[in-house]
């Protein structure tokens, strides 16, 4: 059993598990950290961005034309090109061999088109309906943002190792930029997602009969799940982004994950030192403070997940602060579908939200906010938005990387006033680096990272509760974060049974397959005559034809009676078993005329001496030796007498 670790970022996981005869891909996360090295793509022409100074290394002597590829903003250098993404290491193995892809949540689906399209992939993809729809919205938004303002050229010269090492940090530390890829197209998204088969929680799905996969709620976002992959005698659990906090999704289920042979754990929180509740409070306070001072609040966000909680908490807080007249805007090409879908996924929500459906009310208050006109959503800043826009307001829009999307426009618009605030809640991007191309910026920047996934304390507790035999984690979780080197509590407690992986690792999982389940055909089973060998245990001899189909093994009665195994019908072969009763043996010998018998106990068993025949019988557990000086007749007699004393099968 092997596990291929394709992703370098534990929060954007992508694994391939080879188990029994199947090849299973676990998640398909896309690391978007590379985006930060690119210049933002403004929605309307930005003279500031376009006038940034071109940059080239002082000692550059190469032949490639680098002049138009790099631009400097302050001490940072950015690539002036269409944005590119870091893909999982998909070249480690042939993707056409992948039988099935299991997706845990919508955030871990973003690399899917790179996996399924143009790769020869012909397997199945399993995901819950909200994961599918959420993933689709994220991908569509991404494609829309990237394609809306296409860059004329693609920069590749700067990726040359000679140039790369001359660049300033952090761009020079970019890992393997030659492997970065541009964004997929909407066609690829649709084609890829068309292959997804929707599953429900706790629905058992068989993969070629070899293993059963089951999704169970992970409590992280709507429809997010953990997977258990089970054969008859082995169980592997894949714990992806999970949350034990009470937010809007269905709570995390623990029982399906208990007592596994291997548990693969990924997507722990990226902000282990802060409490999401406190950060929501900080977010609301900062927003109210800015609004009370007459400023605008900009929230770069994804069109799902925590954003729904932010709408809910913020609207309540604004009401309580007397700011209910301040509008909230949500701008995303998928804003409409995102808000609509979230309110029809009642079965995937927490009990509190689910019960609202029976009132009947919309599970999320944003439906009410939209109806009352407090939350206004638009696909973009053009069109009806400009009629409704007023200041001060709270603006939720993408993309959190600040490299494309409507957020770029609002930073350009509001960035010059210290009365406005940009609040970062998403944890995918370091906010200071995200803001770097917009500097100097007067707008206040506040970091309120809200990551509801498991922190280290919760993860350790969960591991103690689930008791896996072996744990697989990223080696990054085994030591404290770089910013908090002394916080030894911010690690996963490891033991010898913990297996750690690095990007690109191929792990041999220590599962020894001992048993395989074989079914016996009813006719054959009816012909068996079990013999009880000890209380509660009966055994029987069986002979048949083993038929293996779709990874199922069935023992059938031999189709041709003549071909029955010798010894089963005509010359039946017996197996003796049990312990020899010496009293019985001696009396049997006497019955056969051998009366001069001496029995001695030895360390290994018994020694029976027949002085008159000059014969010695050594009886030990598992072996019997008759030493009779070549008297074959006597030996056969003695063997027969001995066999009479043993149980037969």
């Amino acid at each position, binding site marked *: 059993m092997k596990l291929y670790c394709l992703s370098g970022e534990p929060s954007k996981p992508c694994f391939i598990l080879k188990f029994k005869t199947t090849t299973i891909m676990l998640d398909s996360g896309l690391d978007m950290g590379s985006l930060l090295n690119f210049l933002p793509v403004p929605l309307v022409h930005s003279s500031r961005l376009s006038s940034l100074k071109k940059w080239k290394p002082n000692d550059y002597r190469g032949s490639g034309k680098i002049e138009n590829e790099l631009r400097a903003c302050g001490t940072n250098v950015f690539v002036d090109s269409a944005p590119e993404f870091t893909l999982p290491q998909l070249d480690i193995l042939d993707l056409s061999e992948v039988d099935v892809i299991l997706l845990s949540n919508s955030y871990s689906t973003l690399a899917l088109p790179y996996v399924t399209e143009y790769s020869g992939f012909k397997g199945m993809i399993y995901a819950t309906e909200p994961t599918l729809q959420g993933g689709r919205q994220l991908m569509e938004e991404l494609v829309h943002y990237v394609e809306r303002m296409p860059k004329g050229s693609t920069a590749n010269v700067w990726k040359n190792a000679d140039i790369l090492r001359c660049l300033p940090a952090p761009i020079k530390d970019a890992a393997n930029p030659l492997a970065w890829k541009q964004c997929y197209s909407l066609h690829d998204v649709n084609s890829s997602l068309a292959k997804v088969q929707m599953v429900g929680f706790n629905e058992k799905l068989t993969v070629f009969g070899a293993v059963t996969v089951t999704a169970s709620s992970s409590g992280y976002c709507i429809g997010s799940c953990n997977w258990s992959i089970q054969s008859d005698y082995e169980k592997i659990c894949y714990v992806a982004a999970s949350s034990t906090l009470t937010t809007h999704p269905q709570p995390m289920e623990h029982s399906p994950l208990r007592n596994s042979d291997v548990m693969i754990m990924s997507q722990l929180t990226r902000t282990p030192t802060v*409490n999401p*509740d*406190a*950060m929501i*409070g*900080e977010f*609301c*306070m*900062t*927003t*109210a*403070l800015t609004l*009370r*001072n007459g400023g605008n609040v900009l929230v770069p966000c994804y069109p799902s997940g925590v954003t729904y909680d932010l709408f809910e908490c913020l609207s309540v*807080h604004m*009401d*309580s*602060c*007397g*700011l*209910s007249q301040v509008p909230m805007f949500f701008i995303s090409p998928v804003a409409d579908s995102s808000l609509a879908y979230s309110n029809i996924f009642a079965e995937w929500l927490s009990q509190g939200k689910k019960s609202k459906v029976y009132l009947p009310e919309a599970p999320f208050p944003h439906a009410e906010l939209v109806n009352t006109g407090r939350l206004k959503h638009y696909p973009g800043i053009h069109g009806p938005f400009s009629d409704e826009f007023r200041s001060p307001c709270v603006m939720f829009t993408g993309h959190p990387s600040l490299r494309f999307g409507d957020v770029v426009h609002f930073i350009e618009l509001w960035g010059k006033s210290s009365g406005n605030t940009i609040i970062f809640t998403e944890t995918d991007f370091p906010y200071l680096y995200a803001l770097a191309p917009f500097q100097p910026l007067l707008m206040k920047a506040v970091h309120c990272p809200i990551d509801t996934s498991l922190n280290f304390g919760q993860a350790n507790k969960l591991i103690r509760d689930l008791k896996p035999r072996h744990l697989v984690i990223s080696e990054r979780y085994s030591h404290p974060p770089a910013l908090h080197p002394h916080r030894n509590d911010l690690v996963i407690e490891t033991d010898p049974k913990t297996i750690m992986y690095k990007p690109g690792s191929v792990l041999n999982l220590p599962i020894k397959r001992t048993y395989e389940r074989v079914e016996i055909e009813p006719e054959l089973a009816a012909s068996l005559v079990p013999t009880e060998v000890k209380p509660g245990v009966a055994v029987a001899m069986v002979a048949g034809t083993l038929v293996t189909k779709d990874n199922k093994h069935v023992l059938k009665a031999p189709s041709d009676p003549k071909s029955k195994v010798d010894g089963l019908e005509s010359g039946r072969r017996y197996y003796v078993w049990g312990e020899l009763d010496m009293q019985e043996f001696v009396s049997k010998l006497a019955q056969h005329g051998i009366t001069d018998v001496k029995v001695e106990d030895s360390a290994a068993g018994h020694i029976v001496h027949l002085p008159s025949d000059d014969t010695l019988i050594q009886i030990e557990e598992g072996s019997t030796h008759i030493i009779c000086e070549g008297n074959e007749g006597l030996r056969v007699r003695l063997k027969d007498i001995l066999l009479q004393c043993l149980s037969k099968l």
Partner: protein
Amino acid sequence: MSTTNHGAATLTCPQLLIAQKRFLHQVPHTSSVLDTQVYVFAVRLMGQLVANYDMLQTPEEKYIVTACVQKATEAEKWSEPSIRNAVFTLLRLMLKYKGALDLVIKLDAIHLAFESLSDPSLFVTGSAQKLVTKLIITSVTDHRQSTSEIHKSLIKQLWVVLRSSSDVAKKATVLKIFQDLFHEISNVILEEVNSLDFLQLLNKMIRCDSAVLSREAATLCLVYKRSNPADSSLDLRSEVCNLMHSGHVHVALNLCRQLLLREYQHLADGWPQDFLRQPLIIVCGTFINPLESGQFAAIAKSISKKSACLEVTGICLGGIEQLLQQGKDPCSFAALHTLLQLTSQECQCDVNHSQYRKFLLRQPKIQKAALRCLHQYYQLYLNDETGIGIPDAFVGSAQYLVDSLGCVDLDVTIVSEMLKCLLPAIKLAICHSLLSAEIQMWPEVLDLLGGTLQKRLCDMHWETRDSTVEFVGKICQSCADDTTVNMWIRKHNLHTLSWECVKDGESYVRAGALATVGHLSRDTTIWENMKIVKDISQEDVVHHILTIISTDTEGFARRAAIDLVMRWHKDGNQLQPINDVYRTMVAATKDFDWEVKLGVLTFWGNIIDQVLSNDTLPSYAINLETSKKFKGVVPEEKEFETKVEMLCSIGCCQALLFSVEDYEQSVRKKACELLTALKAKCLDNGLIQANNRSKSSDPLPTCGAINMTTPIFLDSIQQLDLEALLAENSKSCDSYENNPMDLLDDILASQRQDEEDNAIDCY
């Protein structure tokens, strides 16, 4: 008819007394049909009666008491705790009369009281305890009774309970009885009980597992020592030391805390505060080697578990707070500062090494107790004008407060305590700005505090917003004269944010913000700056306040807005447009909240005073001959009429007349008082004639219904019998005061409801 007003029916006028006795006479005979609550009422009524009247004078009265108590002690009634409580109280009150002790014994009440010493109801336990105490004291002091020796038997019974009962609650009550008895008859008790045995028993009880028993026994020790200071067999200091060594640190510290109370202070000369400080020193890690001192080691050992550590630290802090309240400095400021850091998660300093940090971290009770002590410290230093006593850690402690206040997930009560502490801290910093070298850090601390307060004014919890806006108001009230604070308020927009809180969604916050706005408006620099920053005029501000008075859904906010208007009016602030103010105040006369209406009437009272007084001149100049030239040439009479006309035109008179008919008695009374005063002035100035009242059937003009003119108003007050109305509205008792029979008959009649066909429509 409700039976909850029985306390009011305790007059001793002959008519009432007869009525009460008649009622009480009927009660035992109708008890089978009486509701338990009515019976409780009857017994309590009798209790109120015997407080002022001897009910044992005649056989008939004695019969009433006996019958009532006997009926009350029947099993069915006695199971009701209110009955037991009422009976014990009645008997205790009765004990001051001759023959009462005999009656109590005859009714077997002593037995009942002893049984109730551990009653599930604390009220019953308390009344039984008081009865037994009173019985003993009466028996000792009142020799009129034939059973005056009963106290010996009772003390012996109590002693037996103490020695042999397994009922902890009962023993604790008996200890309380002994505490009361030692105050009164210490010598009598010691005649019956051997003092050595007594102290030995107390010693044993102090060390028992029951916290209640231990506490009461310790208190009794103190009471004993106070009553018998010469008794050398009880040395309190040794007792405390022994308790500490035997691991009963919390009991020892509680004893020390009690010794700090005024009544026991003379028993100890300062050593209790040394003992109280010790656990704090250990917890803060200041004490290096506990093995050097047996006492320290004993304390350290006893607080090795979380619950014990928290309990001991809590007692210790309580004691320190007590000392500080008495103006004594237990010299623990540095330790207190360290303790606060230990409780705070944000603290990154070297206190992390303390082994007690894991117990104390984010413990709200400890945090609050420590903050209360810190507040007392600041107050203590604030009262010391020299500032010499201010410790070096002062700025550090204030910095800690500011840092911690920034923590988002802080409990709202802790935020409130922190803000309470910060107020004297800032005052201190201002008062002694030249006394400390560390004061250079203040700008930084103040800057951080400004930012934090901004956020707290927008906090998720309304309680925090409320405390913060109140804090800003207090700072402005007490320190706005200081240039630094004034600039600080403006720099951090605390004035504009406080104004924004007037629009808060929570009424308490709005009310608090309105009070703060009142304080802010007193400082011209701050107030004018606020209006410039918010781009609003004084008219806009007044209009917003008036909108709150007219439309706010909560009485708190409306009351606060009226207070603000009154304050501005009093301060001569620009209340423009004034006609809008008058119109709003007239409308507010119809408010649903009686306190709002009282506020409105106070406003009108102020207006009347202002209009009718010679306010253009100082009081000392009014009677001067030359003052006339300042008052103009308008004749006195004419001038007064003009003033009344003005009061009518602004709606004041109309509002007062409307309020006379209000459904709230207090409002009617206040309106009557104002109108009476106004009427008197009208009479003095000859606008109306005395005794010229004609019977008019016209109703009084309603507020806003008609345009009140001066003649109509004068006619109206002429018609009104204000004296009678005032007398009527000043009555403090309900209508049954004059005719209690109605009430009593109501009570009895209500019990016969079942016999009648009284179908109740639920809807």
